């Protein structure tokens, strides 16, 4: 077998193989007609190869002419199929050019069968054997060329033009790869084939027709491009699968997130009134898994009080396209209604009709409960509560706040907090408020200052304010807890009054106990006055006129009268009732006054009093009478405690000293009695506790109250040897303390 037969057969086999492959591909993708056309073309190519081989092997001129005539059929098929392929595959090439090519070719085919022996030759005179490689020889026709062959050749020229046109169009369109490979190959191989055929037909070169190889190249080029396409498609398909998997995963992830966040995703097809909602959403609204849902079903689960509001919001969204947002209660078959927050957006068609709404729903029952609890807590708080935002606007008040300030809730919400501040404090209030926001922490407001609120009726009310910053989604809020302290102020006044009353009562009681002593104090000067006066009367009656003596008598009367007046003044002071007087008090003077008051008592009890009074003691502020009262109580108690002692041992020591570098004075009363039982050292300061046979047990409790009211301390200790010492301290107020320090410095210098 010659290599020629082998080569041509291989070419035909290759064409057929490609035809089979493309047919197979077309079978899988019926819509892709390019593969079918290509398959047909390949079959035609195989046929062409067979005819060309036959021509090479032709033995006579007649045979050659007949074979050449029939070879026009596969040529027609190849041309037409390639044109269709280009149109299908490149989607380019002018249509009229395509029709022209096909029409011209068909005309050539018709003419081929009209003329004898064929379209190429009028007459083939003989066959010339041309030697080829390998000692082979092939037949080449020698004859007269048919001028009508020009029709066929014109169709081929048009074909090339069509290819060029299609290639340029595809190139320009941006399909460069495809234009280059397919268009370029088409132009290149068809030009070679056509050129060779023309040269052979016109007898310019003496070679056989070799178009079939060019055609194989053409088919291969197109096949390459198609297989690139197929690879591309496969890749796309893989990518698509991957992206679909991604999509699925994203969807699942989103659903997971939505579920975790208790979000129910929903979509409402407005036109068909059909609601789709995730399982979570169905649970949220209490709907069954397969229940068919529409707007009416949604309406039915809404709480009657919320229904109208929610529907209005939906209508508004459908009408204006605004975002839908609503919080409402959902009535569940059993249990409490559930609070749900819904959001959604609407999509419109081109005509502006709403097509669908998509959104999400969230269970906010806990938040609502928390809000409700917060509201209830605020409402139930015993004090007035007012919440203010950073602008100073009131955002929340409770009933107590309404009561304290006399406003209605609606009047206060949204108003500036300064409305409730008396005018004289108002200008600084905003400053304080901003200062607080800069360093917001829970603390009482206006420490050391008296605060007042302004009521609606214009009156002021004394208040106490605690401030608590609250961080919320809407920014920093300040919750002010306001206590009306008018009653407390009143109670404080009342307590002070009662304390004063009790102190007075105690003084009267003490006076009762001391009455002998006091009568004595008063009777002494009165007696001296009376006796002096009567002595004078007698002297005058006797006719004595010792003027010096009379003068002395009168002087003594005057001085004794003053003495009596002094005693009465002290008594009156002692018994005086009413407000605690705040005066500057020299504690040493208090000690001396007290000793005058109870001197006789001490004498009658044989008590010897020693005093050690520090000099230059600071002046304290207080009520001298009440301080005297304390000291009288302590001294009387001390003498009573020594009633059972030997007369020689009845000694009492009263000391005054400065304390804490002059910040306070301390007064001590030391006795030599039995002391205070350790377990009763505090008990003795309780009301109605007494160790005496007489007495109400008020003395020390009143003393402690008095000292407490002076911001001092009163306590008892037992002495190391015997007896007890009662101490009390009294603070010196600051300005005077400074004065004292200054003075003592001068003394030091």
């Amino acid at each position: 077998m010659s290599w020629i037969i082998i080569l041509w057969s291989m070419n035909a086999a290759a064409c057929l193989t490609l035809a089979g492959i493309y047919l197979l591909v077309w079978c899988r993708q019926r819509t892709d007609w390019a593969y079918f056309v290509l398959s047909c073309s390949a079959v035609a190519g195989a046929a062409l190869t067979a005819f060309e081989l036959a021509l090479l092997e032709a033995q006579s001129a007649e045979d050659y002419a007949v074979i050449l005539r029939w070879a026009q059929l596969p040529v027609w098929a190849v041309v037409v199929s390639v044109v269709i392929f280009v149109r299908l595959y490149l989607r380019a090439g002018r249509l009229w050019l395509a029709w022209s090519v096909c029409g011209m070719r068909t005309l050539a085919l018709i003419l081929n069968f009209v003329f004898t022996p064929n379209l190429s030759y009028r007459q083939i005179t003989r066959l010339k054997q041309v030697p080829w490689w390998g000692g082979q020889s092939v037949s080449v026709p020698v004859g007269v060329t048919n001028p009508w062959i020009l029709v066929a050749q014109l169709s081929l020229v048009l074909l090339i033009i069509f290819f060029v046109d299609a290639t340029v169009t595809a190139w320009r369109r941006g399909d460069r790869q495809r234009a280059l490979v397919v268009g370029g190959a088409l132009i290149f191989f068809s030009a070679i084939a056509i050129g060779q055929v023309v040269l052979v037909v016109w007898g310019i070169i003496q070679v056989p027709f070799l178009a079939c190889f060019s055609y194989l190249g053409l088919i291969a080029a197109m096949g390459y491009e198609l297989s690139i396409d197929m690879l591309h498609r496969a890749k796309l398909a893989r990518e698509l699968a991957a992206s679909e998997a991604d999509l699925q995963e994203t969807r699942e992830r989103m659903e997971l997130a939505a579920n975790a966040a208790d979000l129910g995703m929903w979509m409402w097809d407005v036109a068909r009134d059909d609601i789709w909602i995730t399982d979570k959403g169905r649970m949220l609204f209490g709907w069954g898994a397969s229940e068919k849902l529409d707007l009416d079903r949604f309406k039915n689960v809404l709480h009657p009080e919320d229904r109208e509001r929610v529907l209005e919001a939906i209508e508004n969204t459908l009408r204006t396209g605004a975002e839908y947002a609503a919080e409402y209660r959902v009535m569940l078959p059993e249990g409490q209604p559930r609070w749900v927050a819904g959001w959604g957006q609407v999509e419109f068609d081109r005509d502006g009709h709403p097509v669908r709404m998509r959104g999400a729903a969230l269970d906010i029952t806990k938040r609502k409960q928390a809000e409700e609890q917060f509201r209830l807590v605020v409402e139930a708080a015993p004090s007035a509560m007012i919440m203010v935002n950073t602008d100073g606007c009131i955002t929340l008040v409770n009933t107590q706040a309404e009561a304290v300030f006399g406003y209605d809730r609606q009047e206060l919400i949204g108003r500036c907090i300064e409305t409730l501040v008396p005018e004289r404090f108002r200008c600084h209030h905003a400053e304080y408020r901003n200062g607080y926001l800069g360093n917001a922490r829970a603390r009482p407001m206006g420490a050391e200052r008296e605060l007042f609120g302004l009521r609606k009726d214009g009156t002021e009310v004394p208040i106490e304010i605690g401030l608590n910053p609250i961080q919320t989604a809407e920014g920093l809020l300040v919750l002010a807890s306001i206590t009306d302290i008018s009653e407390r102020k009143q109670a404080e006044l009342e307590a002070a009054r009662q304390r004063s009353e009790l102190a007075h009562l105690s003084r009267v009681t003490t006076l009762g106990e001391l009455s002998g002593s006091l009568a004595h104090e008063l009777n002494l000067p009165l007696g001296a006055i009376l006796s002096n006066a009567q002595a004078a009367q007698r002297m005058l009656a006797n006719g004595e006129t010792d003027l010096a003596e009379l003068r002395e008598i009168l002087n003594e009367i005057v001085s004794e009268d003053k003495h009596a007046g002094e005693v009465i003044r002290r008594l009156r002071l002692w018994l005086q009732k009413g407000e605690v007087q705040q005066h500057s008090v020299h504690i040493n003077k208090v000690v001396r006054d007290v000793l005058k008051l109870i001197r006789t008592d001490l004498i009658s009890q044989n008590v010897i009093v020693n005093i050690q009074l520090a000099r230059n003691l600071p002046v304290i502020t207080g009520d001298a009478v009440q301080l005297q009262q304390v000291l009288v109580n302590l001294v009387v108690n001390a003498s009573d405690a020594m009633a059972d002692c030997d007369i020689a041992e009845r000694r009492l020591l009263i000391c005054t000293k400065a304390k804490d570098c002059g910040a306070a004075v301390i007064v001590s009363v030391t006795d030599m009695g039995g002391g205070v039982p350790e377990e009763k050292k505090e008990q003795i300061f309780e009301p109605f506790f007494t160790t005496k046979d007489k007495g109400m047990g008020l003395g020390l409790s009143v003393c402690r109250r008095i000292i407490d009211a002076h911001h001092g301390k009163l306590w008892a200790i037992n002495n190391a040897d015997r007896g007890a010492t009662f101490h009390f301290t009294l603070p010196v107020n600051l300005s005077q303390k400074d004065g004292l320090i200054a003075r003592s410095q001068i003394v030091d210098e």
Partner: protein
Amino acid sequence: MTAPPGPTVFVVDDYAPGRRSISRLLRAAGFVVAAFASAQDFLVQYDPAACGCLLLDLAMPDVSGLELQTILADKGSFLPIIFLTAHGDVSTSVRAMKHGAVDFLTKPVNDEDLLTAVRVAIEKDRALRREQAELFEIRERLATLTPREREVLEYVVAGKLNKQIASDLGTVEQTVKVHRAHVMQKMKVHSLAELVRLTQRCGMSGR
């Protein structure tokens, strides 16, 4: 201190104006007054022979009025005491009176009340002193009697007849009569009744 010829009012009071005014009043009323600021001062200068009365303040430091009263009683003094106080309670006054106080006055005291009390006290002192003097004289007269005469006196005041006495003493009636006359003469009495009164005053009882 030598005993003054007349009665003296002793004033003891720690309260100077009171002491001075009372002294003035008493002087204006014609009394002799001696004033002391404390019980101790008074005791230092006290003379039991001094007549008069003691005007004593109740409440005084160191030694009180009641204590001074006890001290004087212990010393056998019978100087009448008038307590004077600016304030006295019942128990104190009862105690004072039980211990022989003449009076218990409270300041301010009216001059008449005071002077009356002082006069009463002085009178009491005078009476006491007179009685003391009489007793002294009776005892002196008794001392002049012989033991026999004293025996006879005891029988006489017991109301026995001369005959009985003579029989008891183992003598004759005439002798008893002589002793009896001597007793009457020495005792400076003129009647039996008088003799009995004298002997009773000095605490003597008959046999």
